[in-house]
């Protein structure tokens, strides 16, 4: 009986295991292998070159730019997706009657494809008729060419940050609604002010939600691709590259599979490292992972 049950369980698991082995575990190992080879244009020839790709990577100025840009992105998401979304959630929590309206509006950019958002912002930044230049001329300014080497990364990251503010807003709002109202009521009796309430009650009570959100936004920074691809495609002159866009270009536009694989490996290692360091830092020994 038990053996039969076990057979059934394994049979049910089989399709998932096969797919994961073929398209997740095996390719992961293969990417690690490719990263130690010189391999061009998806040819049949891979030459083992040890750590050479990684050595090149350390010296590659574009990788340095990509890492700096990832740092800028991290600062942006922490400031806006965590900070500003938290402020919005606390503010909305005070207005009972129309919080649903705000939730609907704030969340909808998440549903839209990042490709569409990328194209939308490309059009907003356009010189002749872009929305941004329209507002500039409205207030008496001069039209500008917005995307250049200095500004590209910031302009490409605005939509990235903008899109997900509503996401964390909803997460925080759910967290706030889970805080027991008893705590607020007794604080109200003590005559607490709204700002004090936010700083001394709401934020500390949201600790575990905040921790997991911070880990999520920061590790998510390594996965950003679509919007950058659409708005600047890493340019001009690689000034707005992220590791993701750079890896894609190396592999599929310039056919350097070995080097692209080493970038991919760096992406996972950094992602896992940043995630575990943040977890350690933020969890002062309390529950919940």
């Amino acid at each position, binding site marked *: 009986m038990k053996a039969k049950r076990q057979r059934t369980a394994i049979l049910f698991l089989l399709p998932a295991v096969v797919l994961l082995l073929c398209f997740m575990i095996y390719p992961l190992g293969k990417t690690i292998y490719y990263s130690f080879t010189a391999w061009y244009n998806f040819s049949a020839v891979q030459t083992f070159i040890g750590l050479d790709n990684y050595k090149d990577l350390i010296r590659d100025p574009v990788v340095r730019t990509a890492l700096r840009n990832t740092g800028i992105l991290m600062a942006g998401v922490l400031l806006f997706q965590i900070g500003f979304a938290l402020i919005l959630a606390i503010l909305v929590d005070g207005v009972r009657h129309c919080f649903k309206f705000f939730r609907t509006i704030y969340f909808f950019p998440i549903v839209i494809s990042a490709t569409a958002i990328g194209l939308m912002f490309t059009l907003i930044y356009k010189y002749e*008729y872009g929305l941004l230049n329209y507002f500039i001329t409205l207030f008496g300014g001069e039209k500008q060419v917005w995307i250049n080497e200095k500004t590209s990364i910031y302009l490409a990251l605005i939509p990235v940050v903008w899109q997900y503010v509503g996401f964390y807003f909803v997460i925080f709002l759910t967290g706030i609604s889970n805080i027991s109202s008893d705590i607020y009521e007794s604080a109200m009796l003590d005559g607490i002010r709204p700002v004090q309430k936010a700083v001394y009650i709401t934020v500390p009570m949201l600790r575990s939600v905040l921790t997991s959100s911070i880990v999520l936004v920061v590790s998510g920074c390594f996965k950003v691709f679509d919007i950058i691809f659409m708005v600047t495609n890493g340019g001009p002159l690689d000034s707005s590259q992220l590791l993701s866009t750079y890896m894609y270009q190396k592999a599929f536009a310039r056919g350097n599979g070995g080097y692209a694989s080493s970038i991919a490996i760096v992406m996972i290692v950094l992602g896992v490292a940043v995630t575990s360091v943040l977890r350690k830092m933020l969890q002062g020994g309390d529950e919940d992972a």
Partner: protein
Amino acid sequence: MLEAEKGKELAARILKYIILIFWALTTIIPLLWVLINSFKTSEEIVKNGIAFPATIQFTNYKTIMSYPDLSMSRAFLNSFIISGSVVIGVVLIAGLAAFSLGRFRFKWTKYADAVLIACLLVPSFATMIPNFVTISKLPVRGTHAAAVIPQIAGNLCFSITLLTGFMRSLPDELDEAAIIDGASPLYVLTHITMPLSKPMFATVGIMVFIWSYNDLLTSMVYLSQRSKQPVCVILSMVSNMFGTDYGSMMAAIIVTIVPLLVLYVISQEQVIKGLTAGAVKG
């Protein structure tokens, strides 16, 4: 004294609404601008990028729907074939796996859990190049399945994790009664566990559909044939192909996002639940 206190409170309230409405406007205005411009000719847009159209005209929409190489209507069909298959595939395969992990308890079950969590940490970039090589060797090359299979694999871990958690929380009594009556595991799955897990299947299905519909990268990498590519890949090429036909670009954006906005309007709670549950997805 009291008056001043009241004035302060009112000012705080007004400031609060200003901040809230400001952010609402930043999300609405760009989209509204695209919508309005999609009904204008490109000359109109260049002349005045913000004005309402002189006459509402659908030329842009007709252009993108029948553009020979980048037909949006064909891309739509592709999108629904691909994302529909991905949803069906994930629900079936993840459903079976979750039933196995969630309703049977063996010693190895907890190792399977650990493997699933580890898989969540693997980004699609890390598997993309070898998968591209594998796909180009398989007979599925050049068909919709070339994008469908990797997308199913990419969504599995996360879906199994969610479904397993849900199925574990279901009571045992019903299963046991059915098994004593001689029901097969497949019968228990289809007649007891699946119906009870419907809300979680719906969440997973919606999340996977949205994710797949919006996924640019995998479709771009695994599907090189223009005639099989989904909406977002076509959209990504629009700005290069249409050159200065801004009106058509605006219309293409609107057409791309309408299906998901409709889904969002119809079942907002489900969509929000699905996407926030999918937060951990790799």
